């Protein structure tokens, strides 16, 4: 059976060139980068080259890049590190309601540790209003962390504007760019952020390699203490193959990014316009300001999980909102935040395209998806309407 991978926001296949670059560091180039003899020095050199290439993907300086093991670690480091380094100035943090769990739950942890957190609402397209950020700022505010692009609804947030406000007030600005870096141009200078998290497997690099940009001169408390790796800010023997892979993936992405976007976006637009022909389906997230390969919907009277399974049976792999909604059958907090009623949020489905997605894949999808919806609606107990359910139909809203 033909399989079509439409879950590129979950992860991406490793680029074969990236794998080739990594392999020697699993085999003969096994030296510890801290060792002072030849193999160690070679490993150090490889890491520093990867750092330079990773930095240039986001227009940063090499010394502003700290490698981590995941985007989640980078987000934890940003929030905890900045909160603890600045707690003498104030103990208030601002985030949005549509942050990734690695930001959201870290903020909740900090709340338990005596910090105050404001969770900003978003509009129906999932946009944070810069004026809301401004209103939320107090004399105690030390950090603003807003996601660059939502992996669940694809919306790209107005980070430049928010950073300007933060800068005026002398507040540190972080953005979680895990879903955006490698998919759209990400430039720390024009974004104006002090910290930015991103992960290699989002741009055809390996899992287990991510990085945080920390603007020169920003004080941060380490998350992991130990040795002098990463300038003493992130101890632990470096994952040399993964870091080398991230560097290679960043290098290829810098060259291919526009080509990828030009390939993916028209296919995505076709997928969206075709899917919207289905009765009672709603595009979630911003119609234009969204990730180029991202299409997310809620389908009425149907559960996301059921769509997922039937699509998988037809060889189409996709996601149903956040891990939270697909594993725990809970309504996704992101969908609730954009005003989708809880029962409708169950019908969430997310398709994300990649550079390997083809015209034929989309044709096959466009043919299969409506069939699956009709089939599920035939057996859905709610197909005649949401009798007895709270709220009303989503189609009335847009």
């Amino acid at each position, binding site marked *: 059976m033909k399989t079509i991978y439409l879950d590129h926001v979950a992860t991406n296949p490793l680029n074969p060139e990236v794998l080739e670059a990594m392999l020697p560091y699993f085999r003969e180039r096994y030296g510890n980068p801290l060792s002072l003899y030849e193999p160690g020095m070679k490993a150090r050199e490889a890491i520093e080259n990867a750092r330079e290439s990773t930095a240039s993907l986001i227009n940063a300086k090499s010394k502003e890049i700290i490698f981590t093991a995941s985007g989640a670690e980078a987000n934890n480091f940003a929030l905890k590190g900045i909160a603890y*380094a600045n707690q*003498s100035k104030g103990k208030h943090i601002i985030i949005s309601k549509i942050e990734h769990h690695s930001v959201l739950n870290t903020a909740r942890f900090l709340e338990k540790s005596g910090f105050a957190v404001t969770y900003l609402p978003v509009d129906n397209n999932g946009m944070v209003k810069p004026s809301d950020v401004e209103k939320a700022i107090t004399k105690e505010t030390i950090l603003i962390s807003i996601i660059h692009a939502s992996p669940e609804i694809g919306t790209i947030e107005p980070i430049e504007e928010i950073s300007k406000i933060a800068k005026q007030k002398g507040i540190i600005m972080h953005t979680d760019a895990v879903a955006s870096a490698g998919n759209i141009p990400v430039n720390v200078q024009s974004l104006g952020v002090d910290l930015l998290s991103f992960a290699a497997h989002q741009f055809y690099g390996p899992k287990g390699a991510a990085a945080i940009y920390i603007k020169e*001169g920003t*004080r*941060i*408390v*380490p998350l992991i*203490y130990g040795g*002098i790796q990463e*300038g*003493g*800010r992130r101890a632990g023997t470096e994952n040399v193959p993964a870091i080398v892979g991230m560097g290679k993936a960043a290098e290829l992405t810098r060259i291919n990014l526009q080509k990828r976007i030009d390939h993916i976006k028209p296919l995505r637009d076709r997928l969206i316009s075709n899917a919207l022909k289905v009765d009672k389906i709603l595009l979630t997230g911003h119609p234009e300001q969204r990730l180029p390969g991202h299409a997310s919907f809620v389908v009425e009277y149907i559960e996301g999980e059921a769509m997922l399974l039937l699509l998988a049976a037809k060889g189409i792999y996709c996601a149903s909102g956040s891990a939270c909604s697909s594993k725990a059958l809970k309504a996704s907090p992101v969908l609730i935040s954009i005003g989708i009623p809880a029962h409708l949020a169950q019908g969430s489905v997310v398709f994300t395209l990649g550079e390997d997605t083809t015209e034929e894949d989309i044709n096959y999808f466009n043919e299969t998806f409506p069939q699956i919806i009709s089939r599920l609606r035939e057996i859905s107990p709610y197909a005649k309407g949401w009798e007895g359910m709270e709220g009303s139909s989503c189609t009335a809203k847009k």
Partner: protein
Amino acid sequence: MSAAEVITNLQDVSRLKFLDKPIDADATTDIIYMMCPMHLLTIEDKIKEINTGEILSILTDYDGALEDIPGWCDKTGNEFMGIYEDTDHYKFFIRKVKESK
């Protein structure tokens, strides 16, 4: 731990020179929240970047620096000018005496 408490734990306090006000430095490096041996590695790097006769200031909250930095100066022949105790960190001042390798 306050500076006074740290000093009582030190073997040799004669090298510690506390200043009433900070010295104007030619270069500054901020390693607050970094621990041993980042303070010494940073000095090694930074001292190479300045000219002989110029002053480097190191901002640190690491107590071990009180012993280590004057010791490093003795060992390398650079001049340890003193420590200024700021609200939540120390400022160390070193004058580069000779070109380091």
